[in-house]
């Protein structure tokens, strides 16, 4: 175990996987000498050289398409989208090629590839550079969507992504990059997909989050305990496709209340899917409708006050929980 930031844990995962498997190579904008926009790939060029650390032109669709072709040819590429917004430019390749080839070829061709993307608001980057699209990617059958909340999970999940036979969309919240945590140094340390993590056990309400929103959920749980004597259970989904719905449903059967916290927009967001699944499976156990705490339905503003008003906060979560107990 060593204490490190999430960005360093991600780098360790990449380095270990490149050492383990010579078919792993990395592509992206400024991942080489620059070290990546969020410094995740810093130093890897010196260690692995230009053939396995490829700086690409600014051409997202091209680089993801090349990744797909390389994967079809027997390699295991990782493509870094500098930020998740740029992935719109590669959406066709991700959705029409990466997610569908295994299916359309009747199982002849699979696309083992990791696409890493930096996501999330809170840094005053304004509307084009702040969206949270985990739910969008989770919509497409054939993709896996991973969204770690902490350094240890980031390492274990990223290493696990390189063992997968499919395209894994690996989404990193920019607010998490500098968060420190204890990270196992075992080179075989993996975190399995589709296994949620119950971070805090409680009996009164279940708060579910993923990626950045896990931290609002945890802060809200502490506030509820200290200020309201409400005992909240907090679940970190870790991956939203595959989705560990059993852990969520079992928790809700115990607490009888569920709040979903996410950076996604309310309308058509992933929380809507999760809410529907909870109601389908645990309707008789619910003492209140499932509550969703999401981003407001607006493109994210630049101004700091407006941006914070648009994003979900721990106060919003506390408020949602209290409403459930009043009604």
């Amino acid at each position, binding site marked *: 175990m060593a204490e490190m930031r999430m960005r360093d844990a991600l780098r360790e995962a990449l380095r270990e996987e490149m050492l383990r498997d010579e078919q792993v190579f990395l592509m992206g904008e400024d991942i080489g000498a620059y070290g990546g926009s969020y410094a995740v790939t810093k130093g890897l060029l010196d260690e692995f050289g230009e053939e396995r650390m490829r700086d690409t032109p600014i051409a997202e669709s*091209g680089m993801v398409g*090349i990744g797909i*072709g390389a994967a*079809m040819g027997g390699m295991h*590429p990782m493509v870094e989208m500098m930020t998740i917004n740029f992935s719109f430019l590669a959406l066709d390749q991700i959705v029409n090629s990466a997610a569908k080839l*295994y299916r359309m*070829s009747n*199982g*002849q061709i699979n696309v083992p590839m990791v696409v890493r993307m930096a996501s999330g608001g809170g840094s005053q980057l304004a509307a084009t550079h702040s969206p949270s699209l985990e739910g969008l990617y989770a919509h497409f059958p054939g993709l896996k969507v991973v969204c770690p909340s902490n350094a240890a999970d980031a390492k274990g999940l990223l290493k696990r992504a390189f063992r997968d036979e499919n395209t894994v969309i690996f989404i990193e919240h920019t607010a998490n990059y500098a968060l420190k945590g204890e990270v196992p140094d075992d080179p075989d340390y993996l975190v399995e997909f589709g296994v949620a993590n119950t971070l805090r056990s409680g009996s009164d309400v279940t708060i579910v989050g993923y990626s950045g929103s896990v931290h609002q959920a945890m802060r809200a749980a502490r506030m509820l305990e200290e200020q309201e004597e409400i005992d909240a259970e907090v679940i970190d989904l870790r991956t939203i496709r595959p989705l560990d719905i059993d852990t969520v449903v079992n928790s809700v059967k115990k607490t009888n209340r569920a709040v979903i916290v996410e950076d996604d927009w309310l309308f058509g967001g992933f929380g809507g899917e999760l809410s529907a699944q909870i109601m389908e499976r645990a309707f008789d156990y619910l003492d209140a409708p499932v509550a969703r705490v999401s981003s407001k339905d607006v493109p994210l503003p630049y101004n700091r006050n407006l941006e914070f008003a648009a994003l979900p906060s721990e106060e919003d979560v506390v408020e949602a929980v209290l409403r459930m107990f009043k009604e």
Partner: protein
Amino acid sequence: MTTPIQSAATTELGEEQLGLFLYQMVLIRRFEEKCGELYTKGKIKGFLHLYTGQEACAVGAIAALEERDKIVTHYRDHGHALARGLDPNRVMAELFGKATGVSGGRGGSMHLYDITKGFLGGYAIVAAHLPLAVGLGVASQMKKEDSVALCIFGDGSVGEGEFHEALNMSVLWKTPTIFFCENNLYGMGVPLKESLSTDIPKLAAAYNMPAVSVDGMDVLAVHTAMKEAVAHARSGNGPYFVEAMTYRYRGHSMADPELYRLKDEIERYRKRDCIERLKTQMFEAGQLDEAKFEQIAVRVEQVVEDSIEFAERSPQPGLDTLFDFVTKEPARG
């Protein structure tokens, strides 16, 4: 860098090779004509894009490859599949949507795959497969496989950004990729001259890639250009671009009323038909006579009829397979 390619002398290739070219072109022609009939009878559904007229492109180009090489192509892909030696029975079964089809009935006309032949698919999103061919080249380089990737696409692709992204990166990384453009003059119904402000080989040349334009109605000219392209790519010199000027006799798809072109334009191209051309060349060289050609025609008829019978007899995919092949599990250890 753009130079016209002359047709090779028929004698350079030998009677056997020429006979194979002729057989393959007649097979594709007949297969496609039958597909058109079967579509109107409702046996083949979905979109159907016929390849008649363009046979010399598939046959001349693909014959220049080795077994270890890879192919990705566009959605008008039956001709390429047959030229690569995919089983006509299983290609027809795929068009019928049957379990025995090359894609198990999950792909249909536009998505034929057979990895045992290095045939990595027809792609129905225009230009989406160009970057894939660069990636296949990267894999070949990194794994030191000595294989090349042939990417076949239409003139409609050149307006897409991915065309430019793929060409640029393939030159930067010197990938063994051959870009083979079947220029049939129309992107669906829009003439190329109305959708492109320059000539296609000039685009390739602008990315510092050798580019040639060749008569795509002449299988020998196509083949000669492709031999050069493959030799270039395989010897580590990077990508190569071939434009084959061709023409499709049928509409864009079976749904095309063909309001955008005149009958005499089609007739003009039919006079330059690739099959007739090779036949004449072989007759003149004493490599073919009417009896031998009749043998080819009879054999083709049998292969096509057999493929239809095979497709008819084949089972539908079971409904219990609906959820098969969405993701590949389990993960590697």
